[in-house]
């Protein structure tokens, strides 16, 4: 039986306004990205004249060519890719293994370990003692500073363990044990392959974290060779662009009124940093909703 209360006029007006509001929200969310995209595809000097708002006025690939010819940015991109791939693989493996072990009810010290991990969600030491630790471990100017501290976290372990506990029946494990397999063999042969949803969730969270992180490169890298793209972008935004970039901009200049500018090249660099996120976005949004909702379930 359908609801017998008629749609009132007030409600109809509300519906219309709601749709208008949401359309506005979509535009406000997407426009900044669109604007950076057209800036990156428009001649730099032409953009400086102002008035560019909706579409490209003087199309050019020059801004992207400048990036391609700037060794610092190319290297930064490769560092970002490398830390994302290595850091994510390592984190997924470490998190899954540790969570699986913690999901074993009979593990010695299970409650103590869980308490130890949970506490770190509520209290952290702050950046200075962590910074000092990294120095003592000789992790400054070292690629491992991206990987090791990001191997896992209390939040990731808790959502993964909850997934294992609620999705893998103990009988699966018991029968494998009877067949003579040890826990690690069970993990790699049985559990790991069937846990795609949670592993994808963890992987995507970690990968986005690695790709977007600028801070580690900012404080732990004093030499330029291991600086990731996001940290380079911070330097470009602070006008401290690498000299290689300035000379590339000047080299590509087409006279006084055309050619790339620091703003147009900055826009192109931002687009390069956003595109990988947009590419994984469909996968991201398939998994992360599930991820945060699992995370909010208390024991």
């Amino acid at each position, binding site marked *: 039986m359908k609801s017998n209360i008629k749609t009132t006029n007030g*409600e109809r007006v509300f*519906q219309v306004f*709601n*749709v208008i509001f*949401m359309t506005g*929200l*979509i535009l406000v969310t997407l426009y*900044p*990205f669109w*604007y*950076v995209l057209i800036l990156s595809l428009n001649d730099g000097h032409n*953009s400086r004249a*102002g*008035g*560019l*708002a909706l579409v490209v006025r003087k199309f050019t690939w020059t801004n992207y060519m400048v990036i391609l010819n700037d060794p610092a940015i190319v290297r930064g991109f490769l560092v970002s890719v490398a830390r994302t791939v290595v850091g994510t693989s390592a984190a997924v493996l*470490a998190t899954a*293994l*540790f969570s*699986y*072990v*913690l999901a074993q009810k009979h*593990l*010695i*010290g299970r409650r103590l*370990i869980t308490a*130890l*991990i949970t506490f*770190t969600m*509520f*209290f*952290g*030491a*702050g*950046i*200075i*003692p962590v*910074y*000092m*630790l990294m120095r003592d471990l000789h992790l400054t100017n070292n690629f491992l500073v991206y990987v*090791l*501290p990001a*191997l*896992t976290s209390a939040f990731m372990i808790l959502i993964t363990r909850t997934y294992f506990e609620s999705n893998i029946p103990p009988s699966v494990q018991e029968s494998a044990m009877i067949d003579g397999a040890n826990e*690690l063999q069970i993990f790699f042969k049985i559990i790991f392959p069937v846990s795609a949803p949670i592993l994808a969730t963890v992987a995507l969270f970690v990968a986005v974290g690695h790709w*977007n*992180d*600028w801070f580690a490169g900012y404080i732990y890298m004093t030499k330029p060779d291991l600086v990731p793209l996001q940290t380079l*972008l911070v330097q*470009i*935004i602070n006008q401290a662009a690498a000299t290689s970039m300035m000379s590339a901009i000047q080299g590509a200049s087409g006279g006084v009124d055309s050619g790339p500018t620091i703003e147009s090249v900055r826009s192109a660099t931002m687009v390069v*940093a*956003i595109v990988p*996120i*947009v590419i994984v*976005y469909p996968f991201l*949004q398939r998994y992360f*909703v599930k991820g945060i*909702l699992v995370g*909010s379930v208390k024991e």
Partner: protein
Amino acid sequence: MLVAHKNDSRTLVARVLRQRYLLLVAIPGVLWFLLFSYYPMWGSIIAFKNFDFGLGILQSPWSGLDHFVEFVRDPDFATIMTNTVAISALKLVFGFPAPIVLALLLNELRSAGFKSVTQTVSYLPHFVSWVIVTGVCLQLLSPTNGPIIPLLAKLGVVDPNLLIMGDPNLFWGLAVVTEIWKEIGWNAIIYLAAITAIDPVLYEAAKVDGAGKLRQVFAVTLPSIAPTVFIMLTITIAYLLTTNFDQLWLMRNSAVVPASEVIDTHVFVQGIQLGRYDYATAVGLFRSVVSLGLLVAANQFSRRITGTSLY
């Protein structure tokens, strides 16, 4: 004999042996947490010492509460605390209800397709870094060649030379607006999930009682999602002194320092840039301890009001 053997197998050694594969993973995992989380907590004791590189953490002489006193007596202390609390409070007042309102409005959309498109778009900014957001704002808000200021100036709304990112009076507002822009969709997810979980029978009952749409929101939806709201509120309050370092550090420049110096940036400048590890650690520790206190207090409050709590 048989009984004795059984008892043996119950000893710790036997259990350890039986769990050797589990422990092969558990021990390195625990060591990782001890090294990367707990060792720095222990290292925080330099907040009470005059740290000397040559002597190390243990040998450096004690300084008592000197660094804490120095922070409180710092001429910038009042500014730092005002900025920290004001930015957080503004984010709480405007940023906290925003995703709840968004979730309520999304829930009222008739078209499922439009609803999912809006939602998908709304959490996209959550996944881009503050570096990108800052860069985008610089371009977008430029008074000379950005699209917004010249347009508003033409309409006579703003001064054509308005430099939003260089105006200390506008910095708090900028911080709040960009934070809402970036996180509103993401933060709405949890509320939407809570709304979806409400039993439709409750709405039917409210309708039978003659409740209109608005009345249903106040009588059914909001009370039903109250536990979620209070949990999120508890977390937000606990982080009152933890401003968004990424955002504030990246968005600020020399022109807006007086409006943007917060505890986190003060720690960074003093500790990382000036190398005053002991003092900066003390300031950070002060922040962490107050935060922990706020968390406990907010949690207690939430438990008493709604019966839900974080732990």
